[in-house]
């Protein structure tokens, strides 16, 4: 489809918006530290590969794998075996549910612990960075 005539040429508009963002960022009241945190946390999820030290990702994987699938496959090529498997599944399901609920709860609790630790480590790292910058400033004075 041919581009229609517009009062706001789109390419120029995108440039204008980028310039407005730059200008805003140069303003003394701009919340730089907060925006830096937003950029850094979002960038983590955008990375194609996981940082080996990413505790959050490890915790979430743990949480995912802590969910026990109770739908045990019962298919079989051997005649009659499928019926036996189904019967065993029916007999065991109450027991499996009881165990699975505990394993899942443990997984979730561990994952929550991992995410909490990661957040604490992040805020400590941020504080250390800030202190380093202050020490460097004081040493320079």
């Amino acid at each position, binding site marked *: 489809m041919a581009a229609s005539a517009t009062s706001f040429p789109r390419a120029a508009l*995108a440039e204008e918006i*980028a310039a407005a*963002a730059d200008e805003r960022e140069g303003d003394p009241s701009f919340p730089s530290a907060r925006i830096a*945190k937003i950029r850094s*946390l979002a960038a983590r999820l955008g990375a*194609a590969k996981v940082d080996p030290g990413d505790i959050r990702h490890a915790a*979430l994987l743990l949480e995912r794998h802590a969910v026990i699938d109770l739908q045990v496959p019962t298919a079989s090529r051997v005649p009659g075996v499928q019926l036996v498997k189904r019967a065993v599944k029916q007999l065991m399901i109450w027991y499996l549910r009881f165990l699975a609920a505990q394993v899942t709860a443990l997984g979730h609790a561990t994952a929550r612990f991992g995410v909490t630790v990661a957040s604490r480590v992040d805020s400590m790292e941020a504080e250390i960075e800030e202190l380093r910058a202050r020490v460097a400033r004081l040493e320079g004075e």
Partner: protein
Amino acid sequence: MTQTIHQFVPNFASGDAIGTHVRHSQRVLRDAGFRSEIFYDEAQASVKKLGRHWSQFDRARDGEDGRAWILFQLSTGSAMTDAVLELDLPYGVYFHNVTPPSFFERWEPGAAENLRRALHDVRRLAPRSRFALANSRFSEQTLVEVGYSPTEVVPVLFDYAELHDAPNAKVLARLRRDEGTRVLFIGRVAPNKCQHDLIAAVAAYREVFDATARLTLVGGRTSNVYYRSLEVLADELGVADSVELTDSIPDDEKLAYWQAADVYLNLSEHEGFTVPLVEAMHLGVPIVAFASSAVSETLGDAGILLTDKDPVVVAAAIDRVVRDEALRKELVDAGYERARTFAVEATGPVLVDAVKRAVAGG
């Protein structure tokens, strides 16, 4: 003589883009005089009766002893690929695109493996394919690269009528009670759709422009780990109360979110065709989007296309759309005009002509 072209679709669902496309394709092909049935590998209960499992395909009866054609809806790895090759009937493909496995590697290794299989199937089907249709020029490029010929672009078929049902009144009332700019994204929760960038952009927008803004992410989960990471991200950024992940919701609720939206934001990095962008245009919701994959060609001039998705740049774009009445009106009007080109009344004949040409060419 009446010509036959059956559709083969690996996953047949009622509400997704592929399922809707398949149903409309069947209708327009039948209206044009073709005999056309749907065969699937897996199907949602609600649409099962509209087709049959592919194992029930009878080459003599359904395949008319080699005279019938197959239109394979290609989007995922499936046992149907072998079936199509073994049936030895003339076939063409409609390519919905396949997400690069690299997006899923980190989150869902199993899904990444399935996508690799899908790409392998795309290559396996190429040599004997008689024609190939793609949902966008972006997708067509992949077909050309792996050797399909001839190729043609036929946009995804869907009907705007479904967008004019009544929205869920309760949800709409709740949404309208809230103050602040309401930003919306609709699409499955998947790493290639970059919902984390949406959360970051809205967090920045709240910080710099409108502290009451809200983001709604509508869509089921393709990756559970990614979904949970989004919840954790929103929590860590202190915006958990302003970011709503709805998961899968009924259509009437989705319509309520459309009606309440001030801006539709899309920062996806890989899309073969983007139905929600067209829906946003049709419904008069102004769009801010990142210029990637097929997003640019779907949107055309009917939205703000960014080449940088830094949270502050995106926030500035949202602010401009919300504050600049004249720009907003121009984007909405351009959207209405562009959406008309994707209506099934316009795209249906494109599909029929493409299939007629292919079948006539043998």
